[in-house]
């Protein structure tokens, strides 16, 4: 193929929202048979670029060419017809419909003019099998975890025969194996001449699949580079606009301090279990300790958190807090005892779309002090400003509606909400999902400094290196059973991996 030929080309793209210039004169070029990573910090404009390319939001200025012809997609429907198939950030499916329908809706197989359910179910099963997912496709999607929903969304996009495939952070809740499967399929599609746009915050994944990288910063194009010619340090530097100071230096010492102090038991769990979701387990968490929960996807990490927090009511076992046996029947009880839980599912359980950033931050604090007690507006402003700064939340201001924030920045708001309540035990379920490298380190540092002040933290993450960095001890789960605890020198990626895999 000659070098000047582009499958998808965008020129001079501009897009402004009230108060933000989300994209300013951005260029983007995609060749056939190319996997092209779109990189940038939270709020850099990646999702916005994808949305204007696929007709979700109208362009302010600029031209889009597909196969050399100028196009102007009016809606995702139109973009699909033109040959652009997209998985948007966050799972965007209809939870009330069956898995199979979610894959096929809008293009259902027909037989004599009516929907052929048998065929649809069969083909869905086949498609998911390619992603090594053997679930019952006739069940409503809401039965399944975010990770599975994400796989279903991917399966849908893969099956729409298109020229361009766009994946906006599709791997944020997948584990290593699933990601590998996805990459395998992406490579196969690439061979067939598809152009793939891939957004992720996982640097390793970028280098594992991509041919080219385009970097955005604050809505401006930084540049496009061949992946092989762009070392990691430079990539990160270009993304954040300054040299990246690593994590390692500051935190090794921190962790030692924590270990020494952490003899004071805070939470003691004995034989706690919930039928069908997690086998009875024991767990001890000391004051000022960060306990990592590791395991594969679906191994029961989230379920441990949900059972402790009372979302799933335990049907066996007991919990003692500071030596006192307590009954936790529901989240309200848990909050009463100083627990806080930051859920992995920000879209449905986290943000309240039509409230402002300030209101979203204040929410948990308000719940804690009681709904009738008024928190002065001035104090609310102070608090939200402080956390916006602390977590580097990119927003036009505290009064911006949270739904207008980029995915990663929404995540930061939820984190702020729980940090603010100053709980004694904070459970963080995938707190850094969808958060850019720079902010990730900031959050990890924050977690450690919180632990230093005596807060206990349960830290759930699919990224092993992150867990290793943050935790002072780890509990390993497999198939909904707690199988081991790791601490001290054993906390090293290879050993943990072996424990998880059980070899």
């Amino acid at each position, binding site marked *: 193929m000659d070098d000047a030929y582009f499958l998808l080309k965008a020129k001079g793209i501009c897009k402004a929202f009230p108060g933000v210039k989300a994209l300013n004169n951005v260029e983007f070029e995609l060749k056939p048979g190319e996997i092209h990573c779109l990189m940038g910090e939270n709020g850099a404009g990646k999702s916005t670029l994808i949305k204007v390319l696929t007709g979700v939001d109208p362009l302010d200025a600029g031209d889009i060419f597909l196969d050399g012809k100028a196009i102007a997609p009016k809606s995702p429907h139109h973009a699909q017809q033109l040959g652009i198939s997209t998985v948007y950030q966050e799972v965007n499916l*209809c939870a009330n*419909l069956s898995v199979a329908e*979610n894959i096929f*809706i809008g293009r*259902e197989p027909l037989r004599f003019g009516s929907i052929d359910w048998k065929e649809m179910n069969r083909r869905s099963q086949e498609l998911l099998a390619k992603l090594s997912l053997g679930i*019952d496709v006739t069940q409503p999607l809401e*039965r*399944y975890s975010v990770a599975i929903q994400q796989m279903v969304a991917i399966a849908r996009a893969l099956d729409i025969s298109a020229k361009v495939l766009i994946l906006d952070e599709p791997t944020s809740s997948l584990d290593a194996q699933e990601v590998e499967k996805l990459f395998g399929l992406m490579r196969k599609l690439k061979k067939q001449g598809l152009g793939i746009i891939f957004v992720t915050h996982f640097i390793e994944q970028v280098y594992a699949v991509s041919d080219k990288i385009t970097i955005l910063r604050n809505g401006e194009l930084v540049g496009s580079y061949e992946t092989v010619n762009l070392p990691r340090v430079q990539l990160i530097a270009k993304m954040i606009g300054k040299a990246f100071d690593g994590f390692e230096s500051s935190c090794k010492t921190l962790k030692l301090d924590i270990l020494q102090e952490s003899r004071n038991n805070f939470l003691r769990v004995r034989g706690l279990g919930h039928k069908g979701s997690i086998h009875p387990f024991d767990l001890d968490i000391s004051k000022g300790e960060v306990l990592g929960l590791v395991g594969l996807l679906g191994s029961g990490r989230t379920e441990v958190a949900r059972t402790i927090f009372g979302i799933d009511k335990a049907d066996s076992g007991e919990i003692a807090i500071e030596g006192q046996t307590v009954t936790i029947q529901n989240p309200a009880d848990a909050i009463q005892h100083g627990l806080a839980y930051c859920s992995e599912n920000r879209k449905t359980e986290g943000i309240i779309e039509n409230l402002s950033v300030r209101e979203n931050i204040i929410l948990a604090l308000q719940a804690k002090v009681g709904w009738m007690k008024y928190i002065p507006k001035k104090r609310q402003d102070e608090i939200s400003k402080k956390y916006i700064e602390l977590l580097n939340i990119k927003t036009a201001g505290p009064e911006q509606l949270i739904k207008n924030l980029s995915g990663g920045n929404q995540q930061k708001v939820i984190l702020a909400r729980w940090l603010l309540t100053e709980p004694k035990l904070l459970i963080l379920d995938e707190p850094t999902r969808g958060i850019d490298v720079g902010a990730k380190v900031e959050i990890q540092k924050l977690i450690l400094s919180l632990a230093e002040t005596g807060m206990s933290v349960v830290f759930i993450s699919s990224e092993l290196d992150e867990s290793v960095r943050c935790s002072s001890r780890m509990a390993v789960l497999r198939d909904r059973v707690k199988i081991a605890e790791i601490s001290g020198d054993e906390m090293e990626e290879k050993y943990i991996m072996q424990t998880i895999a059980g070899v």
Partner: protein
Amino acid sequence: MKKMQLSYKYINLMITVVLFFALFAAGSVLYNGFFSTQVLLNMLIDNAFLIITAIGMTFVLIIGGIDISVGSVIALVCMLSAYLLEIQHLSAIIVIPLMLLMGFLFGLVQGSFIHFFTIQPFIVTLAGMFLARGLCYVISIDTIMITNPFYQFVATYRIPLPFGNFISISVIIALVLVLAALYLSNYTKFGRAVYAIGGNAQSAMLMGLPVGRTKVLVYGLSGFCSALSGVVFSFYMLSGYGLHAMGLEMDAIASAVIGGTPLTGGVGFVTGTLFGVLIQGVIQTLIMFQGTLSSWWTKIAVAFLLCLFIVLQRIVVFRKERTKSIS
């Protein structure tokens, strides 16, 4: 385990069906002559128009909307048909299609307002309700009797069934519509898009479904159904009058809700709605057989049922949320 889970969504539907047969059985035990096919068929005959309206309403509820203009549209159709047939002396062959077209367009216009100007469906159809009711009185403030021979024939014609039973033409129309609606909701792209949009309109849009078109068409469908119901109602009443079908929209909504279609959208059953209507029919019949109670007791019974079903729905949703991430 799997069976158990499956039933969550269908629980209201199942309760409705079971309750219907239980009430029917109770009537049969209590009253002589209750247990007969004809009593059952009479429920269909007397409620054919309600079935038709409620079917249209079901689609509107599934998409997450509401249409409270249907009762007035029925009144308008009765009134306008009476006027066109009796005063303008038009033929029924012209009047009936005209009425159906009018209902469809009426719905489309309401749907367009709802979608393109993003106004709440309640407000738009409230305006539609006043408009249609008002138009009735513009045509006439009195009752206009329908003497058209075709209408007279349809109104009185009884289709004989085996063992001396019979049904009316309206019942045939209603049952055909039920079958068509079943097909539409389960086997067409349009029907599935309705469910998807009711589940999550934003996602449906991002998945490339024609959200706007589907929404507008659903209101068109509801308008069409109420017009058809109006035609059937004029067969039944043989008159046009501004107070016809007062509050029928609420009966239609109640039928759908009792049949397992919540107001929150994304879920709903055509069969459920049919049984929702029939339950009201069986209660009416029970009260009729009882003899001393006034017919308003039907409303009281329906009120209790609604209450029961709304509480049930909450429980179902609640339990679902608890068992959500099992896999």
